[in-house]
């Protein structure tokens, strides 16, 4: 187990280094430059380039950047004075994280429940309903879910606030929109897994021992069926947290996605660099934590490695 954890942490660190390097190179390859204002004279431009360190050789820029990262400094904006990436992240990331966690909790809990209910009612109308919802859910992009939810529940019927993120009522629609896809895929996986587990011999054994149906489902079936869901948790966390990009723009939530898209359009090099690196590191480590947790849960990995 120790070896497995060390290996996993090693790969994650290497991933982060590659990510940082790739992002650095790609950002320098971008067309256009951040000081393209026609009003700028060449001297001003030169001074700005020098100020932001763009006149130094690439390698030096790279090492400076890495050094700053080690100290937890993600850089500063080239577009807005006195705006640092750290500052921006402090303001915006809590919104994205909050939304992401809400969506994850909502989609995982509902997805599991729907999957279990669906499997327990295999073949009847309840099952059919959940299967149809699951098929639809995996076929609709989240921005369409978001736009449609907003139109009906907020604009037409006025049940929820239309936009922004100021209280519990504001969080409901965005969380549903963001979590819908994950919820349906979790319920699909859970249903299939439940149906597979129910044919296993240990369920027959439990049944022949006279254990009640409820206890069999709760103690034996669900515990064993939940494994495949845990496996997809890593990619799921990533997809929910990156999904916040569009959901934030639909519901005008001042989270990271909004600023990210803005700085991409502004060609704000250091801003893109800082945010991407932060986001990337966050996701890489989220994935790592899920994998290691999986190692603890799954006896096959715990013993083998």
């Amino acid at each position, binding site marked *: 187990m120790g070896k497995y954890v060390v290996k996993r942490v090693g790969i994650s660190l290497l991933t982060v280094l590659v990510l940082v390097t*790739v992002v650095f190179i790609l950002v320098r390859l971008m067309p256009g430059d951040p000081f393209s204002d026609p009003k700028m004279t060449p001297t001003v431009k030169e001074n700005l380039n020098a100020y932001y360190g763009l006149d130094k050789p690439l390698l030096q820029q790279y090492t400076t950047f890495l050094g700053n990262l080690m100290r937890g400094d993600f850089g500063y904006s080239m577009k807005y004075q006195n705006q640092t990436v750290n500052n921006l992240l402090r303001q915006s990331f809590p919104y994205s994280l909050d939304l992401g966690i809400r969506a994850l909790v909502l989609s995982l809990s509902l997805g599991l429940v729907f999957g279990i209910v669906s499997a327990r009612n295999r073949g009847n109308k309840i099952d059919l309903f959940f299967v149809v919802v699951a098929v639809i859910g*995996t076929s609709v992009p989240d921005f369409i879910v978001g*736009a449609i939810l907003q139109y009906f529940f907020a604009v037409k019927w006025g049940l929820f606030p239309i936009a922004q993120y100021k209280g519990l009522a504001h969080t409901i629609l965005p969380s549903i929109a963001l979590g819908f896809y994950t919820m349906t895929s979790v319920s699909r996986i859970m249903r299939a897994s439940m149906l597979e587990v129910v044919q296993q011999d240990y369920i027959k054994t439990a049944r022949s021992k006279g254990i009640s149906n409820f206890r069999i489902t709760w103690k034996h079936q669900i515990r064993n069926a939940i494994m495949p869901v845990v496996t997809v948790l890593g990619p799921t966390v990533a997809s929910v947290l990156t999904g916040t990009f569009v959901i934030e723009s639909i519901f005008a939530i001042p989270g990271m996605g909004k600023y990210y898209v803005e700085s991409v359009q502004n060609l704000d090099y250091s801003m893109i660099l800082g945010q991407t690196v932060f986001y990337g590191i966050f996701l890489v480590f989220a994935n790592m934590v899920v994998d290691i947790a999986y190692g603890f849960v799954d006896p096959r990995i715990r013993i083998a490695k």
Partner: protein
Amino acid sequence: MATNKIESQDKAITADLFRTVGKSIEEMEAISRPSLTFWQEAWLRIRKDKAAFIGLIILIIYTILAIFAPMFSSYEFDQQDAYAMRQTFSAEHWFGTDSLGRDLWVRIWVGARVSLSIGFIAAFINSVIGTILGGFSGYIGGKFDMILMRIIDIIYGIPALIVNILVMVVLGPGIKSLIIAMVITGWAGSCRFTRGEVYRLKEQEFVLASRVLGESTFMIIVREIIPNLMGLIITNLAMAIPAAIFREAFLSYIGLGIAPPNASWGVLAKEGAAMIRLCPHMLYVPAFFICTTVLAFNLLSNGLRDAFDPRMRGTD
């Protein structure tokens, strides 16, 4: 046996006491079902699978419309008309018009060309690269395999969307950039999958047989292993296409996909979402086509998975 005479204590058992009940060598050896090639077999089962067949029909119809509908319309996809703005469905404009008076019927099918071809091409290139690399990696193993797998671990670790966005920013909007952006991150998945399957297949007897016969490694991979993986590869392709269509829609939605006035379904959905209060049909129409296409692919790939599964042979 029937000619032998068996004596017992009380009674002789003679051959005329026995009668053939209708089992002959010919019948035993006869092939009860027509011999079908792999593809005939798969086609037969796809046709029986209602959901998958409907999916296939929808996709064929959409493809045909995407190719021909813009040719036979009297409107151009970027032709604006100030007197026909934001109209809903009518005989003149079948899907209505957008906020610049452009005909949505034409824009949908021009957009379908972009969305569908990006889906097909990106998924296809991904699976070709992935299959070849994964095939060699799984078969040869050793250092090459180890290095490739570490590279894939790293690619897997980096959120694909972030790489997609950065590549789009660097290369600028367009179909080519979208495909490149998706291939850079996408091949790793099919590579890892193929490698796992090859690992399993290479230990089997028919591979050993052809190695004993002196076949080269390259030919073994191409002639023995890949044909055995064909079903799984195609199923994966059918699952990768909707994912690529989703991704294109997502990137276009945040303004990094296709540049206006060109259309893709993602661009149309974005334009529609912005106008949802004034003319909701501008969102519903592209949303309908994105959803039904992805749904059709999902149904088809489910059906394909069953159709190519040898364990399902003869169950229907």
